[in-house]
């Protein structure tokens, strides 16, 4: 009984987000601008000068999964700001005063973030089609990418909510978000292969979760190989569980 209630509540919180997007979807479109610019400007430029050792693939092919992962990372790591804003307008108070368990509210919020992540993935797929980037459009690959995107967004948005319950204000969350995204993004294999990094940075990128996400998406979209996928998904599941558990304990702090 309580498991079904838990799931129902989580889905309802995500439904709330979906309904909001249905009323006003401007944000989805504006969010697509940044990855589009990365692909169009950064991607096309480096594609033309052919300096990156990207193996059998063109640089555009190489960077598309990276930009997909990056834009989902941006959405989810700043999701705490949305939650802080919702605290300011009383929505969090309202949600936490319902009989639903708090962990289901946090899980629902992270599902809401992953909903935005999925839209982002769709946008980037469309963009890739438009630019003629050759990626595998097989159904299992696409579904696999969506699965990774959902888990990835849940993982980092729950981390963001955990941070938000201590940071409490939008300004601080903005700062912490910037401080996290830049090293995560640049010390990963999103826009260049790990092999060209200096040795110390290679060690950093091994510890960087984004590298694994990019790796998983890239292997599905470019190579069609899945051997690393179970490990990637397991790691994401474990971290999501940890962050959701911690955040559901701390989220009440937001109200104090």
């Amino acid at each position: 009984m309580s498991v079904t209630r838990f799931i129902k509540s989580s889905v309802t919180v995500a439904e709330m987000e979906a309904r909001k997007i249905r009323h006003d979807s401007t944000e989805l479109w504006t969010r697509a601008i940044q990855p589009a610019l990365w692909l169009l400007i950064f991607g096309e430029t480096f594609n033309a000068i052919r300096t990156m050792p990207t193996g059998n693939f063109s640089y555009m092919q190489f960077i598309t999964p990276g930009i997909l992962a990056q834009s989902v990372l941006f959405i989810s790591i700043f999701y705490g700001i949305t939650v802080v804003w919702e605290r300011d307008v009383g929505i969090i108070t309202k949600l936490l005063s319902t009989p639903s368990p708090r962990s289901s509210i946090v899980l629902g919020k992270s599902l809401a973030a992953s909903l935005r992540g999925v839209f982002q993935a769709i946008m980037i797929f469309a963009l890739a089609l438009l630019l003629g980037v050759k990626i595998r459009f097989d159904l299992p690959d696409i579904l696999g990418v969506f699965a990774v995107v959902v888990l990835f967004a849940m993982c980092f948005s729950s981390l963001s909510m955990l941070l938000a319950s201590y940071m409490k204000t939008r300004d601080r969350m903005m700062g912490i978000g910037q401080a996290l995204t830049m090293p995560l993004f640049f010390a990963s294999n999103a826009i260049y292969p790990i092999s060209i990094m200096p040795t110390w940075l290679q060690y950093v990128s091994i510890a960087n979760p984004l590298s694994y996400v990019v790796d998983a998406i890239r292997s599905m979209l470019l190579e069609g190989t899945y051997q690393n996928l179970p490990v990637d998904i397991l790691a994401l599941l474990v971290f999501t569980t940890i962050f959701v558990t911690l955040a559901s304990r701390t989220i009440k702090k937001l109200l104090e």
Partner: protein
Amino acid sequence: MQGLILLYYTCNYITSVCLMNFDLGNSKVSGVTAIEADNLTKIYRDNIRAVDGISFSVKQGEIFGLLGPNGAGKTTTIKMMITLTRVTSGQLRILGVDVAKSPQEVREMLGYVPQSISVDVDLTAYENLLIFAKLSYVNKKERNERIRSALEYMDLSGRANDLVKRYSGGMMRRLEIAQALVNRPRILLLDEPSIGLDPSSRKQVWKSIKQLNQEFGTTILITTHDMSEADELCDRIAIMSEGKIAILGTPTELKKDVGGDVITVNLGSPCNIVSFPKEVGRIINNNEKSIQILTTNGEEAIPLIADFFRSHEIKVESISINKANLDDVFMKYAKRRLGDTVYKSIRSTRRDFTRHSR
């Protein structure tokens, strides 16, 4: 398979029957106190004692008012009830259930309207209620009917599918109450329900609060610093000040506490009254042309006073009445940090008088 389906429907039928009974018995569960606080304390970080060892109980079916100036601890008390903040020490029971032990169970019995607007303005009114009903686990079959009746009850049916951001403040407030009604709470907690409302919206909110209490027997706890609101709505009142309950009683009791009504008689010519009938009232101030008389019931005393002056052949120019109200009680018990001396009027004279006469 058919057996399973049958079992499913039987179960559903039984739960719906139980739910119906629950609704009918909604008003009263015999014997249990609605809200019981015993030595309830909340200490925030930095050692601020927001609520300092208060004890009170609210009976089922009652409208109970928590009054006090800003920062007296009213909102903190409500937040402890709805389990948004933890109880530091002491006990707090909602219909016999300890908030510290079973927070989820407690939240299931309560409806809560926070001080500031907390409906989602990016959704429609219907969606706000729908989401809330789902999160409160309202039975799927009853859900739409309950949403419809809550919207109708708060007079919002006509604009149910409008985005809430297009609503006026009063409508948002009403939506907020409608939202709290969807899970048919046994106890409704209202934190400053009429703050920022124009007089007519405020009247409308008051009307629905009273109606809820009378029709469904819902116990209502309301915080306010508006004395007329408390006087209008509450069966009993507790005045909080600096985290403590300064006084608790019915509005009538509290008003008696600060004395009765003051009647001012302005005379045509100066005169000295030697004896005044005690059963009518007591003269508390006499500056020859204007006499102030303290009475227990002003309306009844006016004709008697008029008769008295007529029989003594003293010309009366005017008689005015100044009824005791909860403002006096508030000013007496709610310690104010600023402007203690601001309040100087006939009322303080009366208060001093009653205090001295005891």
